[in-house]
């Protein structure tokens, strides 16, 4: 039995654990008391991390679709064929693109980005989850000048006040929830904002229950109450920043309840406060504005950059931060520098020895629908993006689809070329957690069959597009990353010195905050007489279709049974709403929105308030005709 220290591949908390192997085969996971993030604790996903690697439906050989059927070919044949087809598409003037992934390492993402920009000469590069978390980053950047967090997971536990935009933290980020619980145990005030009465809401001192997509009403209420405090008591309530007079004009008419005043007191008077922000739903640019308003709340109370205080965006998947930092976003280069930043462009052109394209690229959803050639690295876009099944249909129309993955996913099944790569337990490379902690994955076991290490495959593809470099290890790639992304400068040295727990990226000098008007509250006008209910898509990620969960016998049980018993999905509503419909034993309702209608099964929930319906992210396809491209919409509910 041997124990290999590695990093948990699920959420972006970045816990450390040991992968246990016996005769070269994974057999389990052991916690580590010395790891700075996890300190001996793991969530259910972490405890079963070895299972998907062991039980997963694995790719073992390169495959090319010939006469409609995937056939095994040699690596050289596959790579040559892929390069040839992509070059032909580019020569024919057809758009091509690359999707990176938060399930892939920094090294893989970096090379995916390099392949796209320097090799394929396109800025059509993104990762599918970016379509979900992008607005959150944009909102934070608007206010803070940066999209990155200003506090750490461990600091949460010593907060006196915690403000949480709830996206079911207990399930999405158990490690972060654990710190919140510890703080609450020590007497911290937890204020939750959300439309469900979740576990964290039940533990809170105060739950501000909103309607879906209208979290900003609560945030604006808090802003108003905090500005009231400042006006009453200039000396003891720190309210800082430029432009808050404009902010005051925006929020002064918001109704202040006693609850809002109380929460404002807790936030304003706390020495240390944490602001936790999940991706919110809503129409148009609402999620971005929610994030900006939330950051403003942290900024004007001085909690954005005070030691022990800060804001932490909650990202669902392990390497979202890394994928951003590696520049697998159309408008961002490695280092998260804007595409039109001349200095950054020059830096990369010098490093890569190629002129970089300047045309703006497509984001993930557009990319899926518009390119003729696509390389997908370790992801299954339809299970991630909001458009769900429609993305699968769009991908079916792509002329040449290449997938690099460890696992057989629906995307792999329709690909024209499949390259088998190692999974997290078999590869070497780094992940960057939500705090900016860069940590190593270490090889615990060998990839099956002919599968290769992901960065090696991408390096081979790069070489075929004349942007090769002779990397001999993942560390070589990391050294290049250190040159490409300034914040990663010296990272390989810091990693080897930092040991267990990796190295924290340094804070950027760009951090500054600007107080913007928050704009009127979002969805107040969403519901109206014709459609008095609101339907919300609940959550922002479906672990049940991620191969790391799907292939784990222990973790997939709940998800699979729910899909088995509700093949047509369901929407959740409160008992009062169900009673009012007089369904007479029916277990279905018809939902009608401005976009269209659907008949769906219902499930009664006790944590929703009347007028609110919710559909789990996993079942969004079943109400796609009702939701359209929104994540929240007004609906009329009637018996089918």
């Amino acid at each position: 039995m041997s124990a290999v220290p590695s990093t948990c591949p699920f959420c972006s908390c970045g816990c450390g654990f040991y992968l246990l192997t016996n005769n070269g085969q994974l057999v389990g996971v052991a916690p580590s008391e010395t790891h700075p993030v996890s300190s001996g604790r793991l969530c259910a996903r972490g405890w079963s991390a070895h299972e998907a690697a062991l039980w997963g439906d694995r790719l073992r050989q390169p495959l090319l679709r010939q006469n409609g059927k995937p056939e095994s070919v040699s690596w050289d044949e596959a790579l040559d064929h892929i390069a040839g087809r992509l070059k032909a598409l580019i020569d024919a003037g057809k758009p091509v693109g690359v999707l990176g992934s938060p399930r892939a390492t920094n090294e893989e993402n970096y090379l995916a980005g390099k392949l796209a920009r320097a090799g394929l000469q396109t800025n059509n590069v993104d990762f599918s989850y970016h379509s979900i978390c992008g607005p959150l980053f944009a909102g934070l950047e608007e206010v803070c000048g940066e999209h990155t967090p200003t506090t750490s997971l461990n600091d949460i536990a010593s907060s006196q006040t915690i403000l949480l935009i709830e996206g079911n933290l207990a399930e999405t980020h158990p490690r972060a929830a654990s710190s919140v619980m510890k703080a609450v145990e020590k007497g911290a005030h937890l204020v939750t904002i959300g439309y469900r009465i979740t576990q964290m809401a039940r533990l809170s001192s105060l739950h501000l229950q909103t309607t879906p997509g209208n979290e900003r009403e609560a945030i604006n209420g808090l802003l108003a109450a905090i500005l009231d405090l400042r006006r009453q008591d200039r000396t003891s309530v720190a309210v800082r920043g430029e432009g808050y007079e404009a902010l005051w004009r925006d929020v002064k008419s918001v109704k202040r309840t006693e609850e809002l005043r109380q929460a404002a007191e807790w936030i304003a008077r706390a020495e240390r406060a944490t602001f936790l922000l999940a991706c919110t739903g809503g129409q148009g640019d609402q999620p971005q504005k929610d994030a900006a308003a939330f950051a403003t709340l942290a900024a004007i109370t001085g909690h954005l950059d005070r030691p022990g205080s800060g804001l932490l965006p909650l990202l669902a998947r392990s390497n979202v931060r890394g994928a951003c930092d590696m520049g697998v976003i159309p408008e961002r280069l490695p280092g998260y520098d804007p595409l039109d930043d001349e200095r950054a462009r020059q830096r990369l052109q010098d490093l890569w020895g190629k002129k970089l394209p300047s045309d703006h690229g497509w984001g993930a959803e557009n990319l899926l629908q518009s390119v003729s050639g696509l390389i997908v690295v370790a992801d299954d876009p339809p299970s991630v993006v909001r458009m769900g099944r429609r993305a699968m249909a769009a991908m079916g129309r792509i002329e040449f689809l290449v997938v690099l993955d460890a696992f057989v996913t629906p995307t792999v099944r329709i690909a024209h070329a499949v390259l088998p790569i190692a999974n997290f337990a078999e590869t070497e490379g780094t992940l960057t957690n939500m705090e900016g902690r860069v940590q190593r994955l270490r090889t615990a076991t060998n990839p099956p069959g002919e599968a290769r290490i992901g960065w090696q495959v991408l390096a081979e593809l790069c070489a075929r597009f004349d942007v090769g470099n002779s990397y001999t290890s993942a560390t070589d790639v990391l050294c290049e990353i250190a040159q490409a992304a300034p914040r990663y400068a010296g990272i390989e040295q810091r990693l080897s010195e930092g040991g267990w727990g990796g190295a924290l990226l340094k804070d950027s000098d760009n951090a500054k905050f600007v107080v913007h008007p928050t704009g009127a509250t979002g969805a107040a006008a969403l519901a109206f007489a014709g459609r008095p209910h609101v339907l919300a898509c609940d959550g922002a990620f479906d672990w049940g279709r991620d191969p790391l969960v799907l292939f784990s016998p222990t973790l997939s049980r709940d998800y699979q049974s729910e899909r088995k018993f509700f093949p047509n999905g369901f929407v959740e509503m409160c008992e009062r709403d169900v009673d009012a419909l007089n369904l007479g034993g029916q277990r279905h309702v018809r939902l009608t929105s401005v976009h269209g209608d659907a008949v769906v099964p219902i499930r009664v929930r006790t944590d929703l308030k009347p007028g609110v319906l919710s559909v789990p992210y996993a079942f969004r396809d079943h109400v796609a005709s009702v939701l359209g491209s929104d994540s929240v919409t007004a609906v009329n509910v009637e018996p089918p």
Partner: protein
Amino acid sequence: MAFAIERQAITKWLQKLLESGEVIAPVRGPCGDILFSTIHSPEKVEWNFQNPLHPPKQFVLPQTDPIVKIKRNGERHEVAPTYDDTRRFLFNVRSCDAKGIAFLTRMYEMEPADASYLRRANNLTIISLACNIPCPLGFCVCTDSGPFLRDSYDVQLTDLGESYLVEVGSEKGETALSGVPNLFHPATEDEVSQRKRLEIEAKNHFEQETCHFASAMRRISTGRVQDALWEKMSDSCLECGGCNMVCPTCYCFSVKDLGRVGAWVRCRMWDSCQYAAFTLEASGHNPRAHRKERMKRRFFHKVSAQYYQRDGMVGCVGCGRCIKVCLGATNMPAVVGAIRKGKWNE
């Protein structure tokens, strides 16, 4: 009868054990954690250590345990059990863990006996190291499973400074001491009384670390724990299952076939009664769909008089691992305390 061995002679004994089988001992890993690992040389063994968070039960009940091989043969399937007959010595295991393995073995010996488990257990020699200083979060004194053992070991070592007192608790223990003439000598009266004094001193080290099982047992066995209390406590659980994974007495598992081409291996895997799908039935019905019901079940199994009568002890050896590993706050002493007081975090 008790023996003693000089401190320097331990290496020779370990060398002998290494020749006779696989030796597993607490070892300091590359990241500073102590883990139970196979050793290849005596100097790897840790002597001053806090009990590793990951328990040694994995050597009788691995987290992933192949139990049956299934092979397709034409129209038929060949099914053969797989046994692990490796002779193992579990060296420097703490008292609570030795007691935990004895608990597991009692459970797996019950009819129908589990041959796969028993083959491993029968090939395992437990050489425990009594705890002169109990670990900070342990409460083994409340569960009669430490800091020194009266049973459940093959060999029990006590650190006397210059020498170790060696108590033999079984035939396997006698065998482990054999074949190394002159290493062990009969313990002197002084050495025996020193061990007794150390045990008393160790017990005096316990301060706050108590777990009031008796009071909780009365309430839980007679259904006198309010539903509202379970509900409240269950909000402090994050369903990580860590308490089950590290618990020396948790033995529940599920099975899943690991497919290879034309052949499968049926594996037993650790499972957690705190996971929603643990009791999920094929019909879709779940008798313990709510977390509070699962929590109630866990603590009924651990603490009730009904199970105490069957097992002869509570389902806890007081190792304190669940306190460290719990992502929430529902560890054994906290829940037992809440049941006793009838309130949670108030």
